[in-house]
């Protein structure tokens, strides 16, 4: 079995055929040369063998098998993961990320205990959210202000919005003093950020201003009561304490209660499918009740019953009154409206699942496709024991000569990321071994004294030899040399010939592209000749030299006329 077998290789680029049905078989231990005039397609064959190009037709077999990245379970898992990610991303787009977050996280985590929607299972809620769930969201009525009115000899602080009396005092002066405090507290309850946690203390704040008191002593300096057991403060900027409470919940309840009575807080009922507000309710209890009623009408409809001049929507299940209207027409209209919203919600849910499934399929399929198409890449082939040099030298020009060779060994080194980051002793040992080996290879090509130089500072011939050293560092079974003698002077050339022979003696098979006939004829065991992309001859140097087609390809047809 030949080490490398190229069977019927055809390479087409667009309409151009660069290589046409070439068969080459390289036996292990040979020095095999591919020659031919410029543009014969030699380098293209090399590029196809090393995986830079995918063959248009034909096969390339190394040690009897095609070199491809093997399919492992990890690949399947990765494709599945990418699919899942794509699906989730697409589904979130379809479902509105912002709204989903609000439903799953924000609404579930309300700081005031009076909130009717304190459910801890955020994930479960995320899915309910996709359906006809009605969300109650706290809304702040910004117009609320407070005033002082005197009635029956007492001074009352009351809301201008709904005229609810919040506090009462026997004299005007106390009421005046108290007004600002109550006003601040009403506003605080409406603010989304009412309380923050300090070191064992919860302090209220508002707006962007943050004051964190980490010790009670510090807090006391801002006019605190003497009693150290009081741990809860409601404060407003600039750091004035408005009220104290026995517990956090009490402090919150106080704020919410004041704001509720002042008409500051409202609950907006909305359904995901219809961003418009369905209803606005003034109390949390009412909001909870109303949300459930709306949900029921939206999902299963209701029966309309008329009595005492009113039309009512009754639950189909237990006949509870869900809503009340002035006329039958109004009730019907509202019910239809809500049913439409319910249908829209169901559509949304279908779209969500579709997006999830479709996204997952597209993601996983795409990932699998990309993986499949990139199975035959140069790195896989190089790791299987095929190394190459390039016609136009491709070193790592700004790296050291030694580092260039170490890069050749890169795929053989096994240190892991954390070892590298932490510089573990195992890493040092492996690095030292690799360096020793790299120096040995440099010694082999005669570049050891230049190990610490920058690669691009080397003279041309040395750069070629460094490229060979780098390729040897990958421990190849087959070495592909692309015109190694190009640009070399006669003494360098004969040195190179010796080097190639020594490489073969190391047990490495050499496949060579060369124009330099002295090199080719001098060291090759076998030669294949390419012309215009087809193989026109193959054999020992003597056979090839005598072949008239080869002479014709190089010198042109003899005109006998």
């Amino acid at each position, binding site marked *: 079995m030949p080490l490398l077998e190229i069977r019927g290789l055809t390479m087409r680029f667009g309409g151009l055929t660069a290589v046409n049905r070439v068969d080459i078989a390289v036996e292990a231990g040979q020095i095999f040369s591919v020659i031919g005039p410029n543009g014969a397609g030699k380098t293209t064959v090399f590029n196809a063998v090393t995986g830079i190009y995918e063959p248009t037709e034909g096969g390339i077999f190394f040690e009897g098998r095609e070199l491809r990245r093997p399919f492992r379970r990890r690949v399947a898992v990765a494709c599945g993961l990418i699919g899942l990610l794509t699906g989730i991303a697409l589904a979130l787009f379809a479902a509105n990320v*912002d709204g989903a977050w609000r439903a799953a*996280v924000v609404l579930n985590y309300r*700081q005031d205990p009076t909130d009717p929607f304190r459910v801890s299972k955020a994930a479960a809620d995320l899915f309910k959210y996709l359906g006809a769930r009605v969300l109650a969201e706290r809304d702040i009525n910004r117009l609320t202000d407070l005033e002082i009115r005197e009635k029956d000899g007492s001074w009352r602080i009351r809301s201008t919005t709904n005229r609810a009396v919040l506090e009462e005092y026997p004299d005007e002066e106390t009421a005046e003093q108290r007004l600002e405090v109550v006003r601040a507290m009403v506003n605080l309850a409406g603010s989304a950020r009412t309380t923050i946690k300090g070191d064992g203390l919860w302090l209220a704040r508002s707006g962007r201003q943050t004051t964190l008191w980490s010790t009670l002593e510090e807090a006391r300096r801002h006019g605190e009561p003497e009693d150290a057991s009081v741990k809860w403060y409601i404060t407003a900027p600039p750091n004035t304490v408005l009220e104290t409470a026995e517990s956090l919940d009490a402090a919150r309840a106080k704020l919410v209660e004041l704001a509720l009575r002042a008409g500051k807080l409202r609950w907006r009922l909305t359904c995901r499918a219809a961003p418009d507000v369905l209803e606005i309710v003034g109390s949390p209890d009412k909001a909870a009740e109303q949300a459930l009623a709306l949900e029921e009408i939206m999902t299963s409809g209701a029966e309309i019953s008329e009595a005492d001049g009113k039309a009512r929507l009754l639950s189909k299940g237990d006949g509870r009154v869900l809503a009340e209207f002035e006329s039958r027409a109004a009730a019907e209209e509202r019910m239809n409206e809500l049913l439409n919203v319910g249908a829209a919600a169901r559509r949304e849910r279908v779209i969500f699942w579709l997006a999830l499934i479709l996204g997952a399929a597209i993601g996983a399929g795409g990932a699998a496709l990309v993986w499949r198409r990139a199975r035959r890449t*140069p790195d896989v082939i190089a790791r299987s024991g095929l190394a190459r040099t390039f016609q136009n030298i491709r070193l790592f020009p700004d790296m050291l000569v030694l580092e260039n060779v170490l890069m050749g060994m890169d795929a053989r080194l096994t240190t892991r*990321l954390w070892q590298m980051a932490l510089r573990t002793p195992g890493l040092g040992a492996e690095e030292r071994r690799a360096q020793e080996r790299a120096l040995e290879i440099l010694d082999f090509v005669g570049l050891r004294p230049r190990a610490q130089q920058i690669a691009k500072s080397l003279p041309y011939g040395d750069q070629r030899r460094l490229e060979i050293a780098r*390729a040897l560092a990958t421990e190849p079974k087959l070495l592909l040399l692309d015109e190694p003698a190009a640009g070399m002077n006669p003494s360098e050339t004969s040195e190179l010939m010796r080097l190639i022979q020594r490489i073969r003696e190391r047990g490495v098979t050499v496949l060579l592209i060369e124009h330099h006939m002295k090199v080719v004829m001098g060291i090759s065991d076998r030669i294949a000749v390419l012309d215009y992309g087809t193989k026109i001859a193959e054999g020992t140097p003597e056979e090839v030299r005598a072949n008239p087609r080869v002479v014709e390809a190089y010198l042109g047809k003899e005109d006998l006329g």
Partner: protein
Amino acid sequence: MKRVRWDYVILGTLLLYPVLPWEWAALLGSDLRTIFIFAILALGLNVVVGYSGLLQLGIAAFFGIGAYATGILTVPQFPFQIGFWPAVAAATLIAGVAGVVLAAPALRLRGDYLAIVTLGFGEVVKFAIKNLESITAGTKSLNPVPPPGLLGLPVNWENYRAFYYLALGFLILVTILLRNLENSRLGRAWMAIREDELAATCMGTNAARVKLSAFALGAALAGLAGSLYATTLGNTGGPDSYTFNRSITVLCFLIIGGMGSINGALLGTFVLMGYDNILTPRLDRWVQEAGSAFRFTDVKLVVFGLALILMMRFRPEGILPSRRIAMELHEEKA
């Protein structure tokens, strides 16, 4: 004569700096603290642009992701509130994963094309922060981001020293880590990919994996910096802190300091941020006291631009270029 180890001298100075008791020292100290954080960001970008040669113009996006991840995980309006240390780890990880998610499909692109993708990603993140009101509080910022707890020790975070040491500690940690990586197999592979990707691939190096690791590490470090930034600031800073402008500024740090070199990245950050945050406000005050209406702050970008032009003309490799480039210049002289 023995060579002076300047890195130890500077490190010692920075470590001892907070001992200074004066008022001005505190002001300068809090400026330094910000510079440390941006130095981490610059080091992160240096991995991607400097070592691996992938032009990344959206580093601010990962900075923002880190800041907002920390914000979301710690602010009281959300139920997570996991505290600083887990949040820093999570933010770093999240930013790193975001880097992988962005880079995995974009890695087939090179040079300008990759730059455009990262630039676009930067804009996407900025607008996402702006528009995802319930998650990020829109143009306002998430706050308050609580200060870290240190094993229950009573630390006064109002004082600049605590954050100063926190930021400096992280900076030292990151520097050591990167120095190790730079001298390892991975650092070598990064540079090889930068020099010649095809050649590296033909030597058996999995270029995609190497590039991905650089991108992920760069993004993770940016996320770490963002996390510290949000914690120091006490809030997430709003979407305008994470614009293209910031990405370019950080890139300028690298260009001025020296691409692909840790010392260069640090120096670049200190010089430009020092000019911007420390020198100009003081010059302004001084000029104002002298009765002039001129403000150095107004010509900040002019000075930045001029510095870049001069740098490109006279010292394109930066003030402190990497060892390799320095050696190469040495070689030419010899």
